[in-house]
């Protein structure tokens, strides 16, 4: 059937042209979409960046950069807390799957971790505020009493501005929830890379009498180093942009501070947008969009760099 239709030459050529044209335009449409994300955000952001303090009450007397700086700080701070918790955990879980568990058990665990990645962020937020924060509050009290001499755990007496949070809704809680959310991402990528470690390297190490841990340190980690860095940066990208979990868990007031346990916490860009858009109007919305553009630029750079690192690894891994 296909043969007879193919024999009528002009029709098939037109079909081919249409089909390849459709495919090409779909590809170009994606590029256009990415460009238009940048363009439309910029169009709506410009009035926000140039807004004068008299026109927009959100700015609180300063200019746009003074407004956005504490938010950038809070975003980075929460994400870095999340990464400090998540990276060792994710690498360990990935190692457990790839080098410790049996193949069948490893697959089952991998499925469980993927399940964790599928949980919607609003569920994480609900769990964080209605359960986790309350559970962590006594621990925070213990930390600040016993380790209060460390600046991170320091809180001032009750009633003053950096008092211990009674609800547990601190930046550390937000960081922990973020960590739980990025663990599946980092684990998935690390697992893939660990599994690809050349078998001969591993067996050679074992044959020379290395223990399993020495084998992992001598063959798996050097091979996977750039992959681990890339995976961590992708996790960072996710943590930077995560909105709802932070918006729900964190009790924010937009300060710049390193205190992890106080009731006065830095806010993050996405949480600030999500919470501000409801009451916002006019120029305030433009300011929020401008802060979103700042976030877009930060995550774009992080993801760009991460992909470049991961892709570079792809090239020389073929040489093994």
């Amino acid at each position, binding site marked *: 059937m*296909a*043969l007879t239709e*193919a024999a009528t030459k002009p029709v*098939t*050529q037109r*079909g*081919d042209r249409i*089909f*390849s044209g459709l*495919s090409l335009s*779909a*590809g170009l449409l*994606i*590029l256009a*979409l*990415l460009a238009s*994300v940048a363009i439309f*955000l910029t*169009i*709506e*952001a410009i009035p926000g960046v140039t807004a004068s303090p008299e026109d927009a009450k959100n700015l609180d007397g300063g200019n746009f950069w003074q407004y956005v700086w504490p938010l950038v700080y809070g975003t980075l701070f929460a994400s870095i807390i999340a990464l400090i918790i998540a990276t*060792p*955990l994710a690498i*360990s*879980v990935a190692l*457990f799957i790839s080098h*410790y568990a049996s193949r069948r058990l490893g697959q089952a*665990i991998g499925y*469980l971790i993927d399940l964790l990645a*599928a*949980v*919607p*962020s*609003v*569920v994480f937020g*609900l*769990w964080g505020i*209605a*359960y*986790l924060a309350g559970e962590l509050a006594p621990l925070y009290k213990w930390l600040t009493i016993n380790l209060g001499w460390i600046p991170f755990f320091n809180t001032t007496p009750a009633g003053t501005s950096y008092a211990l949070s009674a609800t547990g809704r601190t930046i550390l809680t937000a960081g922990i929830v973020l960590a739980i959310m990025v663990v599946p991402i980092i684990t998935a990528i690390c697992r893939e890379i660990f599994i690809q470690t050349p078998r001969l390297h591993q067996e050679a190490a074992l044959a020379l009498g290395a*223990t399993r*841990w*020495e084998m992992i340190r001598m063959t798996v980690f050097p091979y996977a180093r750039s992959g681990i860095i890339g995976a961590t940066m*992708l996790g960072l990208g996710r943590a*930077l*942009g995560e*909105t*709802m979990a932070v918006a729900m868990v964190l009790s924010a007031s937009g300060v710049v501070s390193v205190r992890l346990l106080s009731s006065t916490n830095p806010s993050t860009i*996405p949480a600030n*947008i*999500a919470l501000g858009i409801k009451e916002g109007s006019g120029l305030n*919305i433009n300011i929020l*969009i401008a802060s*979103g553009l700042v976030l*877009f630029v930060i*995550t*774009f750079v*992080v*993801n760009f760099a991460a992909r470049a690192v991961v*892709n570079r690894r792809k090239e020389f891994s073929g040489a093994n």
Partner: protein
Amino acid sequence: MSIQAPPRPAAPPLSNSNSNSLTANQLPLWAPKATVAGAIVLVAGLHFVIGMGLVGAVLIGWLAAIVALPLWSLLVEGSRKATDRLAGVLIASAFALALIPLVSIVWKVLDEGASALSAEFFTFSMRNVLGDGGGIYHALVGTLLITFGASVISIPIGLFTSIYLVEYGQDNRLARWITFLVDVMTGIPSIVAGLFAYALFAVFFGPGVRMGLGGSVALSVLMIPVVVRSCEEMIKLVPNELREASYALGVPKWRTILKIVLPTALAGIVTGVTLAIARVIGETAPLLLIAGSTASVNFNMFGGRMQTLPVFAFSQQSSPGAFPDAALERAWGAALVLMLIVMVLNLIARIISFLFSPKGE
């Protein structure tokens, strides 16, 4: 580990009671299990006999285990083996630690959400509801419509792009750029996608616009890269021999793709699309911005606010009104329904890929 040396008649007498020279200076195979069992006994003792809190007891039991096994190993096997044992214990406990939140979330959502589910919960909206009662009907309608809209936009674009990348692009410069930018697009924060949709619609409809279609556009930005990636992987898996056999019969390229490549990859494509839907159906932030929140049912994608399940859960929790207990219960109920939808979609995807993937030959 379990190598058994052949018995040697002339084995020299060792100081160790173990007479086998190959297994001398080694912990018995049951050592890790014995340590874990000892730790469990310790935890049970602390918790039930002394009456310590469960968290503290588990923490002490765990500390005892990670000290005891390497120490035992250090005394018998030497420092290298002890380091190995320590690393093993730490990695296993990291894995256990990572499972705790998963179990806790699932248990908590089931526990708190199950009591909210009722016939009324699924068939009523929140219109004129103040205290108990009310439901998620309007949110279900919104979620289904907006996700459907996003799928209608994303699936053709994503599928055709992946066809271009595999069949037409042939790794040229444009194809490489598209692949790279699609990868980068996967990392766009969901709130930025929402802001994009908001900015786009604000330019055309004026500021303060809220409509369901905007939600679909925002979700498409998040969904397209996922669809492209999974479809590309699946189309790549189709053996070249099938394409060449088709060309050899004189079938033009587009019909080869349509009749040979796509049907072969269909199961994988459907699986990938289902997973992409599962990923965006739980998105909250973009819908909060552009679709807004309302108490009433709205079937019109092109006008007015539209409630969705994730936004419903968020708004019930964050602005509970005069009856916070009832609102929080509804939030947990909505979270449970949302989780169930995501899990069912994941399950469907796995079943499809299991049933329809090409087998053998």
